[in-house]
């Protein structure tokens, strides 16, 4: 349970970090943010990089800034800072709820927003919230900056659209439209464990009819999944049990090949996806349009 040897670099600017990345074989470098996912991989020698590039001293990547569109969070901002931000709690409650569901306070004290996004664990909360909220990922590389939509960012297990030599530097969260309902829920063995399955929803109500629904499930596939067929099943329909029950079939169909492991069977994960998917849509509807 001790890491294999590695070289260590801890630059204090993003420019230096990009240069070190460019000078090394990308397959032999691991970027470290808070280390709450990477350290276990190192300790168990599942990762054996030649070089650990620690981004934790880049002070310029630690901020929570209100913008015209919403909020911009530096990639090295800790989850605890997000949790303690009144701005996030009041104006981005779905992102806040997703944050406090992650691990324990002692983990959130070190774990970062950018680290979780780039880790892209299929059972983690942030990717699902990011897809539901249309978050933009700001990425820097040798050729400059580019922006990747959350839905395009998460590719598969522990894999993102980041190219070798690129670093995620900022996460931009748009403000929810007034009256938007939202909900987050997950099932885990114990509070703080990785979710077996979780779900996130947002929607608007217009004259009692559901508009612009978003439903994202996590823990049930190789990445957080936006369930468009289930969204279509409720869009334009009134808030009723019949409407929400109508999501069961499209959710079960979309979650076609869920993980099956020691924590939960394929059948149980599919069952949870159906139950939680319907539940977050119901809760989101109850909060929409000044309903709460």
């Amino acid at each position: 349970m001790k890491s294999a040897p590695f070289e260590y670099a801890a630059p204090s600017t993003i420019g230096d970090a990009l240069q070190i990345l460019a000078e090394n074989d990308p397959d032999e470098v691991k970027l470290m943010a808070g280390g709450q996912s990477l350290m276990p991989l190192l300790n168990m020698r599942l990762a054996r990089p030649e070089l650990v590039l620690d981004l934790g001293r880049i002070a310029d990547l630690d901020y929570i800034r209100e913008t015209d569109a919403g909020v911009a969070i530096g990639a090295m901002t800790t989850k605890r800072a997000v949790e303690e931000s009144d701005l996030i709690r009041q104006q981005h409650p779905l992102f806040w709820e997703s944050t406090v569901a992650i691990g324990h306070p002692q983990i959130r004290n070190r774990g970062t927003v950018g680290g979780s996004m780039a880790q892209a664990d299929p059972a983690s909360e942030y990717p699902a919230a990011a897809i539901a909220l249309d978050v933009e990922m700001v990425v820097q590389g040798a050729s400059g900056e580019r922006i990747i939509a959350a839905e395009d960012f998460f590719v598969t297990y522990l894999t993102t659209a980041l190219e070798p030599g690129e670093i995620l530097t900022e996460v931009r969260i748009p403000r929810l439209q007034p009256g938007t309902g939202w909900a987050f829920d997950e099932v885990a063995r114990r509070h703080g464990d990785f979710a077996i399955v979780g779900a996130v929803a947002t929607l608007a109500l217009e004259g009692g009819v559901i508009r612009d629904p978003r439903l994202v499930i996590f823990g049930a596939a190789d990445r957080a999944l936006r369930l468009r067929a289930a969204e279509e099943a409720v869009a334009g329909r009134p808030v009723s049990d019949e409407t929400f029950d109508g999501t069961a079939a499209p959710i079960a169909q979309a979650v076609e090949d869920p993980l099956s492991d020691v924590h939960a069977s394929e059948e149980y994960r599919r069952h949870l996806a159906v139950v939680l998917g319907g539940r977050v849509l119901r809760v989101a509807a109850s909060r929409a349009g000044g309903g709460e």
Partner: protein
Amino acid sequence: MTTNREYTLRLKVNGDAYESRIDPRMNLADYLREELGLTATHVGCEHGVCGICNVLVDGRAVRSCLMLAAQAEGREVRTVEGLAEGGKLHPIQEAFIEEHGLQCGFCTGGFMMAVCELLENNASPSEEEIKDVVGGQICRCTGYNAIMRAAHNAAAKMGAGGSSAAE
């Protein structure tokens, strides 16, 4: 910025400044135990699950197995050895004794440091807030009720101005 297989670490532990030449792969728990001889920080699972190795870094409870010692560069670390002052136990330590918040004692340091962070930032935490913090550690002896009582007791001692610590 050069890369290296040897790292010169400067940090403070329990108020004392240290400078050490270390292998960058050394984690903070091993550094405290093996380089500084501060063996009150116990090591359980070594992958962040059990919380037994909790220490405070700049006042925040963290898993010392999930942090490279090099990441503590320039920081202030506090361990169980830093709780008691002048031969007098910290109120958290007294509370764990009074409430039997331990049996075998292996995990106790991790619980005390997590509770320490909470109580130094929140004089009167709710039951839920304590549970959130205590739930981050694993104890296989007590069943947690005694630990919850110890945390409440410690909050009462510290909130009543009964802190025996210098702060």
